[in-house]
């Protein structure tokens, strides 16, 4: 079985998983309105890391200015997770998988100097991470749009099922830039206020900075309090490159594949993608109903962090594990009144649970969808 042995989150809400969990549990968010930032003509709401605030942490971990800010948060999050895991990251038995959509894309800006342009290549950015830890293996970069963070964990599970690796370090990260913000603005996908997942008045998503890390190991036996990444699936809508399927086809198929014969009654919640765009949330409600999961509580965490893109699948998986450890279904911040046509069990309050399993669900451009079933103590 594939077990989580350590994790970390670096976000505007803190630089440990614990700090992030406690902030979310108490309803905090760093979503703010930015006007004139990066000289963009339109204002936007985002959850951005105050970059100088991390300088001391970077210095404490010897992460110097040869690295871009994106690389720095990737390395910092990995350092902190590895310190908890107490494994030798330079071992050939350790594989690094990076989940990101845009990496160092800001280096394409003609005004950006100080770094070689090659670092815009995701493989080169990932190499900074593995070189930092003197790891000999070629890093894998999963770049599957917004589902990358779950895909990277699925790749980790698969790589650990063979004997080649003993540990996989999955790091999900993206940092915002004029490139990304203007692109989502051109799609009219951004809300001008804090986002409202699944709400009747939702008007779009917010973007966010984050890096999150989970370290997985293979185990023959699992303790009752250990988290097992049981089963993942990636499925395509075969419908449209930039809009979700009207019938939630790929998301439904991914849900069905990970459920298998697992009892719906044992699932504490589905942690949805819940970007708060009209189409995404509606599509997920259809997929969840088609999978026979309408009675399972659903939550979404974009109201705390915005859409952190390559980090989202990792960050939201970590917080969901911590929530179940704390017997809690986290509130969907920003949600008030149901705004999808297929009813879901949603709440803007934290709710108690004694169940030990959840499904992480994501969808993205390119028609891709991913689901991953986590069970504390493993599937009996």
């Amino acid at each position: 079985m594939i077990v989580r042995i350590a994790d970390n989150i670096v976000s505007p809400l803190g630089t440990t998983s614990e700090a992030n969990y406690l902030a979310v549990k108490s309803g905090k968010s760093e979503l703010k309105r930015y006007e004139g930032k990066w000289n963009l003509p339109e204002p936007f709401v985002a959850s951005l890391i105050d970059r100088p605030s991390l300088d001391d942490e970077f210095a404490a971990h010897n992460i110097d200015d040869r690295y871009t800010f994106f690389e720095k948060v990737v390395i910092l999050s990995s350092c902190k997770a590895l310190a908890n895991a107490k494994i030798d990251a330079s071992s050939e038995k350790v594989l690094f998988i990076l989940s990101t959509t845009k990496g160092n894309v800001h280096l394409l800006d003609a005004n950006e100097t100080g770094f070689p342009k090659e670092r815009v290549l995701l493989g080169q950015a990932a190499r900074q991470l593995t070189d930092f830890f003197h790891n000999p293996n070629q890093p894998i970069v999963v770049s599957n749009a917004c589902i990358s963070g779950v895909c990277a964990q699925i790749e980790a599970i698969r790589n650990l099922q063979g004997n080649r690796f003993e540990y996989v370090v999955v790091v999900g990260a993206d940092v915002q830039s004029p490139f990304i913000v203007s692109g989502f603005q051109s799609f009219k996908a951004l809300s001008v206020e804090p986002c409202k997942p699944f709400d009747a008045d939702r008007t779009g998503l917010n973007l966010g900075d984050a890096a999150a890390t989970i370290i997985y190991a293979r185990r023959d036996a699992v303790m009752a309090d250990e988290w097992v990444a049981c089963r993942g699936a990636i499925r395509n809508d075969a419908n449209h490159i930039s809009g979700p399927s009207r019938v939630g086809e790929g998301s439904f198929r991914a849900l069905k594949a990970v459920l298998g014969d697992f009892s719906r009654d044992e699932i504490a919640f589905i942690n949805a993608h819940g970007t708060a765009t009209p189409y995404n949330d509606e599509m997920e409600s259809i997929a969840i109903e088609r999978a026979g999961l309408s009675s399972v509580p659903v939550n979404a965490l974009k109201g705390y962090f915005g859409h952190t893109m390559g980090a989202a699948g990792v960050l939201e998986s970590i917080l969901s594990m911590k929530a179940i450890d704390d017997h809690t279904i986290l509130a969907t911040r920003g949600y008030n009144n149901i705004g999808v046509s297929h009813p879901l069990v949603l709440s803007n309050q934290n709710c108690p649970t004694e169940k030990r399993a959840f499904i992480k669900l994501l969808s993205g451009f390119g028609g891709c969808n991913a689901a991953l079933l986590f069970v504390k103590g493993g599937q009996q």
Partner: protein
Amino acid sequence: MMRHYVTIQPDLAMLDGKFLESKEIGSALLVELYRNHIGDYPKFFKMDALCRVGFVASELLLQAENNVRFEPCDDRAVIFFNQSGSLNADTHYQATIQDPGNFFPSPAAFVYTLPNIVTGEIAIRNKYYGETSFIVLEQADSAVMARQLLNAFLDSATQSIIGGWINCDDDEHFDARLFIIERNEYADVETLAKDIETIKIQ
């Protein structure tokens, strides 16, 4: 060796080891291949270069495979690798926002700034509901690609994969080496890696 494999580079196209007749170079070669071998999918002209080369290469492979086409299919995955990600589309999009005095961010350009869009285009064309995935590597390491591809069969739904390397540095410079592999066709990573290497050398 895989039953069907295809290479498309700016100055050549080869299918199953045989040259396809062509006289154009670069982006014009892709249009020529589209017109000579496909011709019924005008969406091709909306695609960016990475999608165009992936689309044409997959069509050639599937024509060679000669199975019933366009029926809903849930057991075939599309899994690609490259070095440049969506760099070509990224560069085009950056040009639309570089000059504050001429700022025209385009959604049509932005959507291609994700490398996995090409896997989605192929899924849409062929009604493939299976896994689609895109992995970026520092270099074309056949052993890593072989490992990741064989790992994909750990999803019991996946019976075959359209996979391989598909890189696009700019509109005129691309390199696709794609193939179809079936579940149980390769017993080990080394053998698949060797065959991927063979396509590379041709």
